[in-house]
């Protein structure tokens, strides 16, 4: 089996792992680093449950082999919580606005939304829907997900103003 060494930063922490060349990034996160917040859904690039940030941009971690993350920075859902354990405003908004039912798509939804809100702090509902076009939810019908993200956008821009 052909192994390769991958050095990357995950949620701010340097990691060095030796994995088979064919290891997917989603597998590296879950199986080698035990970060199981990133979900494996369809594994065919459709559902978006495995969405993580690669250098701040949303990607589907089942569509990358781990070595593509060499020297780069990955952020997963585990990286969003504050040091004191407080939830990220997006996580908080999903809780308050019922943005989930079974919860399996939620980490992917939140990671897509995080990358999106960093580029568009005051989105319209239409823009939010477009930003989520690579993430599927089979429970909610999306209404409360969109509401949650709109609420988080408001909370986050309020926070930015307060600073």
């Amino acid at each position, binding site marked *: 089996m*052909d192994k390769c060494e991958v050095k990357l930063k995950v949620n701010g922490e340097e990691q060095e792992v030796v994995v*088979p*060349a064919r290891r997917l990034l989603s597998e590296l996160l879950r199986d080698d680093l035990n970060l199981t917040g990133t979900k494996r859904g369809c594994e065919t690039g459709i559902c978006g449950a495995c969405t993580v940030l690669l250098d701040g941009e949303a*990607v589907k971690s089942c*569509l990358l*082999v781990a070595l593509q993350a060499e020297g780069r920075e990955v952020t997963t859902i585990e990286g969003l919580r504050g040091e004191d354990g407080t939830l990220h405003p997006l996580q908080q908004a999903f809780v308050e606005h019922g943005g989930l039912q079974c919860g399996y798509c939620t980490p992917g939804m939140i990671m897509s939304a995080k990358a999106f809100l960093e580029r568009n702090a005051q989105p319209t509902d239409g823009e939010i829907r477009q930003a989520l076009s*690579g993430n599927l939810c089979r429970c909610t019908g999306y209404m409360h997900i969109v509401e949650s993200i709109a609420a988080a956008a408001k909370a986050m821009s309020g926070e930015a103003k307060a600073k």
Partner: protein
Amino acid sequence: MRDFTVLKPSSAREASRLLAEHGDGARLMAGGTALILALRQRLVTPGHLVYLGGVPAMNAVTYDAKTGLRIGALARHIDVATNAAVKTHYPMLASMAAQVANPQVRNQGTLGGNLCYADPASDPPTCLMALGARVLATSNAGEREIALDAFFTDYYQTALRPEEVLTEIRIPPLGDATGAYARFRRTEAEHRPMLTLGIVARRDGNMCRSARIVIGASTATPVRASGVEQLLEGKPVTRALLDQAAALVRSQTEVLSDFRGSADYRREIAGVVLRRTAASLFGVELN
């Protein structure tokens, strides 16, 4: 996914040498969004994967008013969609790139990789062919330009030789031409278009001086609608002329038939999309 050995060339020429060395047993990988799916389904089972991620400066996008646009093959869809020169000088290309697949794939998939994969149900081939794009193929022996008209040879097949690496996409200046790109999906939730259409035309008001019209996604490769181009050229574009053009495209286009759309349906849609897109480009009221 079968095991493979990863090779990381630091230049396109080195990549070409590796391809020549390993022959059929090697595959090139850029962003990987399409190839990884094919690997997982064991549609391809290479012993060696030649990964281009370490090749520097192959993702630049530059524009010159005389020579046009040059896009490094490793530029991602998002890079094309957000580039200021592309938005200013080739708005149809920017809007196409902003619609490819979904946001996560646009952040990772490359334009060069997309063209080499030659998946018919994809956006860039049709749009770029309408724009008269050419690609630069680099090998250890040198470089050659290939017009996109001659690049797509069949379903998932291109004119690239086994040891050639696509390194750049070149698009001539539009000059006084304007263009439009349209994609048709049966529902908004689909990520892959069922039919694509690109038009680049020179016109005086509604008079069509010349037009390049390309249809894709419903055909094995993007194809020029040359009958329609000839019909429009030198005529004022009116509703009646567009009805004729739609009828012509329905009868002359050889379309695919599969579970995503029957041949009859695809032909019908080709007429509809052509009529609407040309009407909007030439300022013709349809209703």
